[in-house]
């Protein structure tokens, strides 16, 4: 549990738009975090946008059109600050995530070739091999702790492939990853971030001396506006790559898996019709958004009828889009054949998630290979699932069991 003292209402915020809402402390039954958030932000009488004194004080748009409007518009909403709580903004800044257009495109174009559709196909097949070997490794035990035994392995392996890391780095990276994903112990998290920065810096220096064909080598030898990239920019890029693809994918895998464990009908639908899997990935992405995207207001502006001042902070919970019943019919239901599939789970506009296609590939491969081998599984009876949420919501412990045949 993380608590930050309430802050006073600024003069420009009208009292009728104030709600004491703490997105980082939402109690959810059976890991239904998205439902729990929905129940609060779409409750009777809630405005389309409100201001909360929690977590440093920030605005929360609650409806699909406002989420889309804000995320698409980098001229009004800057990514230079992405967390509302003072002193928690990543330093050095994540690159290009925390760089506004037009400069961000220079860095983004360095990364794009490594996440192109063609590369994703190759990485997806690597993910398939790993998925199969992980499942076969624990299948006979009839149980696993899904996060540590499976969910964090996949994104680490993908990262290792993109930046061409030796096998010996896997275990230390997994240890850091598990601490970051598990997250609410701020001290341990800070230590893990330091460990990761030290690891990343050593890697950057190595690739500057001996460049290969990987992403870090490309960035280490690239010139932008005639200059090599600084240590801070390089570090911001490598830490972003590692963290952005890590807790997000691990968390999505966990939400998908918890849902399928509890819904045999949906499992059966995918086992009988595997061609539905890409649509199922999209639908579960819509239904289980995890990212809370922060932006700082650049100049005084209006959003959803509220007057926002320069320097105000806005937290755009992507769940407010996916769970908006005014935008999606039966928004709380999972319907693999839903016609309207377009969601904001990967953000929108200039900072739309560069790894979205890779994430989709990992999720698709997971469903294909897991359901073939473990069609029936359940959350270990008696487990109380807990969802933690700072920037990204995640299930930190998910014990599963199945009957070995």
């Amino acid at each position, binding site marked *: 549990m993380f608590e930050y003292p309430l802050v006073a209402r600024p003069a420009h915020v009208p009292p009728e738009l104030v709600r004491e809402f703490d997105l980082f402390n939402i109690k959810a039954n059976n890991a239904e975090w998205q439902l729990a958030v929905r129940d609060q932000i779409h409750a009777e009488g809630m405005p389309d946008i409100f201001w909360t004194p929690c977590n440093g004080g920030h605005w929360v748009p609650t409806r699909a059109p406002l989420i889309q409007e804000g995320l698409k518009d980098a001229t009004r909403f800057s990514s230079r600050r992405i967390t509302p709580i003072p002193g928690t903004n990543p330093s050095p800044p994540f690159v290009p995530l925390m760089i506004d257009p037009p400069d961000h495109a220079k860095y983004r174009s360095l990364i794009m070739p490594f996440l192109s*559709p063609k590369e994703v196909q190759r990485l997806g097949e690597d993910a398939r091999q790993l998925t199969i070997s992980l499942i076969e490794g624990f299948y006979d035990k009839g149980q696993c702790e899904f996060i540590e035994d499976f969910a964090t392995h996949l994104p680490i392996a993908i990262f290792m492939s993109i930046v061409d890391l030796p096998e010996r780095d896997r275990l230390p990276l997994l240890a850091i990853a598990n601490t970051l994903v598990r997250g609410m112990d701020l001290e341990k998290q800070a230590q893990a971030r330091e460990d990761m920065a030290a690891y990343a810096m050593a890697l950057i220096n190595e690739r500057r001396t001996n460049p290969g064909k990987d992403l870090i080598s490309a960035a280490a030898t690239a010139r932008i506006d005639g200059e090599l990239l600084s240590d801070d920019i390089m570090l911001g890029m490598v830490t972003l790559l590692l963290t952005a693809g890590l807790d997000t994918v691990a968390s999505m895998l966990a939400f998908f898996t918890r849902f399928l464990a509890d819904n045999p009908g949906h499992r059966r639908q995918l086992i009988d019709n595997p061609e539905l899997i890409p649509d199922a990935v999209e639908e579960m992405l819509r239904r289980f958004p995890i990212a809370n995207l922060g932006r700082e207001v650049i100049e005084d502006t209006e959003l959803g009828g509220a007057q926002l001042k320069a320097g105000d902070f806005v937290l755009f919970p992507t769940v407010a889009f996916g769970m908006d019943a005014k935008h999606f019919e039966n928004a709380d239901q999972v319907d693999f054949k839903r016609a309207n599939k*377009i969601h904001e789970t*990967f953000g929108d506009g200039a900072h739309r998630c560069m790894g*979205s*296609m890779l994430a989709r590939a990992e999720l698709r491969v997971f469903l294909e290979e897991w359901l073939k081998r473990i069609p029936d599984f359940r959350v270990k009876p008696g487990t109380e699932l807990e969802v933690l949420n700072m920037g990204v919501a995640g299930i930190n412990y998910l014990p599963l069991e199945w009957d070995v045949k």
Partner: protein
Amino acid sequence: MAAPYLKWQCFFCGEIYDEELGHPASGIAPGTRWEDVPEDWICPGCGAMKADFYLLEE
């Protein structure tokens, strides 16, 4: 002779726009060249912008 039809792919979701097929469901007639697809057209797969599509080399 008319230039061959080209295919464009969305960077974010992999959706392919085939000029020969167009995208009738979103109002783009078969045979519509990429340059004639309106600038405010969005990816039918994920909602990304037209600028997020790349020429697919086969």
